[in-house]
Structures are given as C-alpha cells and as structure tokens.
C-alpha cells in the first residue's frame, strides 16, 4: 500500500542532474570501495579468559563499544557493551569473557565491496562487523561510521581532483610563459557523417569554457564552427579539416577541404542561397544560411574557393581585455594575425 503522501512526495520530487549524479556516485562508491579500504585496522581484542571487569576498563579507556574475542589468533566471538551490562546486572564482573560473548558471528571479508558490509549491517541490525582475510584471520572491524567516513573521503577526493583539473585548464595561459602561446586543436570531418555532425564544434566549445572563455565567446565560436562543420559534412567531396588556434585574446578557426569548391562566392554568402539536396534540408540544414550566419557571428572572415580545388574558410574572434583567457599581462606581445 502506498499512502497519498508517499505518492505525492514521489511525484512532487524532482531529481536534478546534480542529485542524480551524487546518488549514483555514492552508490558507485559502495561497490567500488573495498571493506579493507575503510575499516579500522588497529583493533583492540580480548581473550576468552579475560575477566569482564577488564573488558569494562578497556572499553572505557579506549572509548569503544565492543571488541572481538581472539583465541590463538582465531576469532571466536565478539563482546559488546550490552554483554557487559548483562554481566553487571548479574553482579558477575569476575566471569570470563567466554561466558557472555556473542558467538553467533556475522563477518565480512576485507576484499568484499562496501555494499556487502552495508547489507549485513542493515540485515542484522548490529553496530559493527569483524573483517576477515582470505585465511579467516581477523584484520579489522567495520562500523556504519567507517563506511560513511570512507565514502565522504572518496567523494571529497573526486571533488578536489575535478577542482584541480578545472583550475589547471583555466590557468593554462597564465602558467605557460612564452612570447606567444597558442593552443591548436585539429579535427578531421568526414563527408556525410551526419550522426557525428557537431561533435567537433561541441568539443571546441567545451574546451573554450574550460580554458576560461566567457559563455558568449564560447557560444559564438561554437556556432561559427558548427555551421562550417556541417558544410564540410554536406557539401564536400571528401570531408575536410578544422584547425582552431586559441590564444589568450584571439581565437582563429581555419576550415579547409579539397573540393568541389564554390562556383560563386557572392551567391554563397547570400542568405537563402543553397545548393543542398532535399535530404539535407530535411535534416534542418542546407537552407543557405550557414556562411551568412558565420559572417555575422565572427569578427573577421575570409572565404576563398576555387571550383575543382577546394574551399578555405578563415575566421577569427577577438576577445576584449575583460574576456581574455588570462589576466592582462602587458609583458607578452600578442598581435593579431592578419595573414593566413
């Protein structure tokens, strides 16, 4: 039976991407992490002969609530605060551990994943489980607290690694000292590869964001390159190449192919002029807007083409000082490149 509230709660709750990612990551970690990665190794143990009075002292001094019982290195039981309370209520603190310990043991192996320990802890509702190695020797203890701590540490590590990656990428141009630093990305685009059409543009846009470009700059580059990429897929004989050069204050994009070339560049630049087939138009492209769009969105554009030889499209986007990929650095001379 599901109550109204449960139903409402389920329907009303919206799992965001971030939620979904966090939940899955914790679940993932419960499977990825081994019990031996998070268990407590330095375990206080007692012998079956030890009087319960000494157990009381030990638990109090070490501020723990239970301990495994070892007989010649073999795990024979576990003694806990509850057992101690029983002995105390019987006024029987001189009795040996063996009389009060729990011998019905639930154990886990160190090489098992955390999820095993979690399942058992929940199933039997105990606070701690002894951890054994492949020879059934005690190697540690695991509690719910150990599991929580282990997962938190692992998530924090993930997070820090991601932070470091982001920091490194966005400070690339500040960290590298040279008279002129350029990052070059090259892509080969296959003719007719509609399924992957836009992958290169998408990767270029992502790279720019990681390098610290503003969303507007990344978007403009993405749009210009995407139109050019689709042109290579739709119109060329053999596909073509995209080369993107990223400098702190300028992004230069060069798109080349080896044919068939454009008969009339003036026409090609006119909005609505198209030589695309119906199939291409059905895919949402080939409406004769590509080159026109590119011209509007980039700062500089040069289109040269020779029928039978190929086409060369050069574009650049200039970043103002406040958009630059590094803090203003006057010692480095960065000049706009005007030639090919």
């Amino acid at each position: 039976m599901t109550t109204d509230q449960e139903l409402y709660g389920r329907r009303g709750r919206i799992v965001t991407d971030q939620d979904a990612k966090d939940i899955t990551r914790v679940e993932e970690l419960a499977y990825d992490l081994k019990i031996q990665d998070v268990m407590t190794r330095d375990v206080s143990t007692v012998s079956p002969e030890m009087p319960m009075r000494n157990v009381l002292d030990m638990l109090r001094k070490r501020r723990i609530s239970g301990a495994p019982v070892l007989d010649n290195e073999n795990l024979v039981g576990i003694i806990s605060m509850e057992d101690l309370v029983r002995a105390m209520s019987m006024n029987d603190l001189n009795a040996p551990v063996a009389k009060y310990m729990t011998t019905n043991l639930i154990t886990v192996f160190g090489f098992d994943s955390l999820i095993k320990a979690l399942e058992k802890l929940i199933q039997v509702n105990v606070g701690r489980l002894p951890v054994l190695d492949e020879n059934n020797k005690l190697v540690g203890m695991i509690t719910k607290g150990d599991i929580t701590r282990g997962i938190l540490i692992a998530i924090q590590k993930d997070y820090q690694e991601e932070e470091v990656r982001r920091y490194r990428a966005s400070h690339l141009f500040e960290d590298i000292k040279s008279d002129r630093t350029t990052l070059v990305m090259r892509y080969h685009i296959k003719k007719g590869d509609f399924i992957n059409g836009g992958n290169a543009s998408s990767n270029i846009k992502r790279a720019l964001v990681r390098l610290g470009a503003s969303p507007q700059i990344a978007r403009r580059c993405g749009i210009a390159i995407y139109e050019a990429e689709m042109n290579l897929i739709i119109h060329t004989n053999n596909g073509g190449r995209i080369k993107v050069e990223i400098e702190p204050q300028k992004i230069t994009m060069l798109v080349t192919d080896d044919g068939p070339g454009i008969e009339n560049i003036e026409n090609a630049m006119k909005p609505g002029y198209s030589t695309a087939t119906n199939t291409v138009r059905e895919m949402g492209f080939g409406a004769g807007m590509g080159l026109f769009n590119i011209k509007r969105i980039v700062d500089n554009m040069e289109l040269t083409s020779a029928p039978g030889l190929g086409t060369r499209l050069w574009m650049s986007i200039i970043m103002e000082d406040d958009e630059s990929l590094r803090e203003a650095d006057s010692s480095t001379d960065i000049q706009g490149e005007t030639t090919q």
Partner: protein
Amino acid sequence: MKLDDVIRLVEGQVLNSKSNLDWEIRGACGADLMSDVLAAIQPDAILLTGLCNPQVVRTAQIADVRAIIFVRGKRPSSETIELAKEEGIPLISSPYGMFELCGRLYQAGLPSLECNLDCAG
C-alpha cells in the same frame, strides 16, 4: 518560468527523465531550420521544433538552449535521446502543433528569444 511550468502548459511528456526540470526558462524560439536557430536564438531559451535528429541536440548544446520541445507528439531517435542525456538537455514531447504551442507559451507570458535579422550573436 520554470521548465516544470512549461511542461504543464504544453501537456508535455519528458523523454529523458533524470534532467534539469527546475531550470528557469527566459523565453522560447520555434524553428525547424537549425541554421535559423543558430542565427537567432538567445541563450537560456527552450526550442520548439519538429526536427528529431541528433543535430537538434547538438544545436541546442552549441547555442545554450535549455530544453527541446518536439511538436505534434514527435519522438526523436534513441541516438538523439542518448546525446541529450549526455549533454543534460531535457527533451519533451507535446501532442500539439507548433502554432498552438507557441501561442500557449506566449499567452502564459513566455517571451520570444528569437532575435531579429539585424542583431548579432
């Protein structure tokens, strides 16, 4: 307007569930030509379209489109859904046609994020 409200208005069905449905939507744009979308749409809009191929999602990702609504109950291919999942872009299918949907959203106060021919970027 939250994406959730938009979904209610268009009586839409979300096709890739684990997505960002609490996003704030600034406006919308309707087009079947991806070049028109690339030329005209401003960031943080939703896109209404009848086109179902993966290029729609690519276009959305490049142009910072928040979500895509497919008109007339169209269902995109699994490749399209897969790509949208990767890019975190919600896909919504609505039974209504383009004109009806634009009307409903506009009437509910969602502005056009389609800029005129003379605006750049």
